[in-house]
């Protein structure tokens, strides 16, 4: 697997595309600011959301039990999965029981995390992603590059060509209205003929056993209310204690994502409709392990708004795919190392540690501090020999004043005289993307002594 910086280098080969991507993502951040500024007590709201989530983590076992009990009494089936494989098998078994051949799915980062689509396709189940962005990347056989705008890396002309090839649409020169209509017509048929619908869960309420799904397109509802079977998949951390806490989170979620006051649809599911079967799959997949770590457990507060990636100067200029993880950006860079430290060891370094992610996070996760903490763990377990050697050499030089003086004299000459090919050799990691400064004629010490 490529490291983040290697993948980012690829992305950066097309400079005009980088600029376009940067601008598109920044647009979301600007809208977020406009939406947030309309709420007078935004900071208290963030603080309260963070406190509720800490309360959730502190009582997660009892809240999950309460949620299960209430959901069961509402006539909902509840399943538990230790990992992605078990989650996939549970979903498959439900689908097989109902002889499901056609399945519609609304956006769920959890099912992405578990690789549900390729798993179900092995069993010849047709699975259609119904969120437009997800549908686009499904047709293009790609992965989402952003958690709320999965196809934000694709230009409209590319989507036009994709639809021509996959849906047989006539060329439209990237007319967004035309392309949305084409997808609408195609997906309406899928909704009407689906045997089952899968959704994610934004919030699950312990006291009532209900759960909330937020969309702007209405795709989750259209799928669920038409299909005879509804399966909702949630990570254990999606629980909140009470209904009244939704007031806090629904005010924060859409505003943080793109500045909207609320999504068009915030649907609250408590009981299946008459004749329908409803299932909830509760998934751990490494979350309870993350809970044990005092340094990193706050990452479980995340409500998946995407604000941290929209504000991140690295994300905007390297693209979501460069992270190679299900969830990209700053939050992905602190969640992913918990799943596979070796595979994702380059992600915590994909940051300037500027702290903007922490500032915009609606549940006040200390994202940039966690990035820094992951770096320390990774450097211990996977040290970088070249950097280590450089630091050791520096240490020797700074320990010996005479050596320091000599090295200073030599380096000031060397920088001036040596050809670039020698100065920017493989050992000079620092000089990889930077120019060395012009060397002054004298050292500070020499200059000071001459004055007095």
């Amino acid at each position, binding site marked *: 697997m490529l490291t983040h910086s290697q993948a980012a280098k690829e992305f950066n080969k097309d400079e005009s595309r980088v600029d376009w991507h940067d601008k598109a993502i920044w647009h979301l951040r600007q809208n977020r600011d406009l939406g947030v500024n309309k709420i007078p007590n935004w900071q208290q709201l963030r603080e309260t959301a963070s406190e509720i989530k800490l309360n959730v983590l502190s009582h997660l076992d009892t809240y999950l039990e309460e949620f299960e009990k209430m959901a069961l009494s509402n006539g909902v089936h509840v399943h*538990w999965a230790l990992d992605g494989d078990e989650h996939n098998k549970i979903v498959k078994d439900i689908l097989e029981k109902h002889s499901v051949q056609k399945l519609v799915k609304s956006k769920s980062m959890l099912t992405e995390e578990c690789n549900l689509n390729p798993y179900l396709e092995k069993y010849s189940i047709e699975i259609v992603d119904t969120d437009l962005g997800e549908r686009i990347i499904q047709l293009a056989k790609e992965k989402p590059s952003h958690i709320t705008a999965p196809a934000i890396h694709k230009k409209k002309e590319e989507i036009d060509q994709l639809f021509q090839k996959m849906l047989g649409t006539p060329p439209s020169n990237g007319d967004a209205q035309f*392309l949305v209509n084409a997808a*609408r017509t195609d997906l309406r048929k899928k909704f*009407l003929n689906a045997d089952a619908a899968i959704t994610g869960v934004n919030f699950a309420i312990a006291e009532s056993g209900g759960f909330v799904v937020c969309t702007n397109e209405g795709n989750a*509802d259209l799928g669920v209310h038409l299909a005879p079977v509804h399966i909702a998949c949630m990570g254990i951390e999606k629980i909140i204690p009470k209904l009244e806490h939704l*007031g806090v989170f629904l005010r924060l979620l859409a505003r943080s994502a793109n500045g909207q006051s*609320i999504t068009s649809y915030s649907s*609250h599911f408590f009981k299946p409709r008459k004749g329908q079967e409803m299932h909830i799959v509760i998934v751990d997949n490494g979350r309870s392990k993350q809970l044990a770590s005092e340094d990193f457990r706050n990452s479980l507060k995340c409500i998946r708004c995407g604000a941290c990636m929209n504000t991140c100067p690295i994300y905007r200029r390297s693209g979501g795919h460069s992270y190679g993880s299900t969830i990209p950006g700053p939050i992905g860079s602190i969640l992913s190392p918990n799943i596979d430290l070796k595979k994702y060891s380059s992600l915590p370094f994909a940051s300037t540690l500027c702290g903007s992610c922490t500032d915009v996070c609606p549940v006040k996760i200390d994202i940039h501090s966690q990035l820094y903490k992951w770096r320390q763990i990774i450097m211990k377990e996977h040290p970088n020999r070249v950097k280590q050697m450089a630091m050791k050499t520096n240490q020797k030089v700074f320990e010996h004043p005479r050596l320091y003086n000599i090295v200073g004299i030599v380096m000031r000459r060397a920088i001036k005289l040596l050809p670039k090919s020698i100065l920017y050799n493989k050992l000079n990691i620092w000089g990889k993307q930077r120019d060395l400064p012009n060397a002054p004629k004298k050292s500070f010490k020499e200059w000071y002594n001459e004055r007095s």
Partner: protein
Amino acid sequence: MKEVNSRTKILYRIKENKPNDKTNIDLGQFFIDDNENSVINFCENLVDNDGDYLILDRADNLQEVLLKEINGRSFADLTGNIVDHQSWSFNGLISPKKWSDIKVSIINGIIGVAENGAVWLDDDSMQNIRTLPFIVDHTIFILNVKQIVPTMHHAYEALGKIKTGFGAFIAGPSKTGDIEQNLIIGAHGPMSHLVIIVGSSDSQ
């Protein structure tokens, strides 16, 4: 059997690993907004969400207004405001797959939220036809001014212990920004969204 095992394992791990925080959560500080400008705010925020509004002083001429909105299209009226024309009838025999033929839905809202223009519906107001407001081309919601509250906090307070099987805040038409962030209305469902507010704001 495996299922029971995973449940026990997950709950055990959480018990072992969870922090111990005892912070008291108080939402009282968020009930500062009063109702003074709620109707105006509701309308402004609804328009921001690409919805429309109509304010009627009295409910007398509601049928006339609705028929004008329907404009000859097939409709389902769950409010009983249209008596002179045949509404779509759901007699259980009709397959949901036929519901794409309904173009306009008219449903009573239960709560309106000023800060975001959202309207709360539940199984009762939807008469258990949960698909309806999501599948039609044009949704009309009827709301009394007295049902408008300032914020989401007030809305959940008013809802109390929710007894419905399904409920939703609907704040605008179906929309998407997934193609280069061009805002397109009518991604899957409604292409337009109208809230008719009945009763003049003086009566608050």
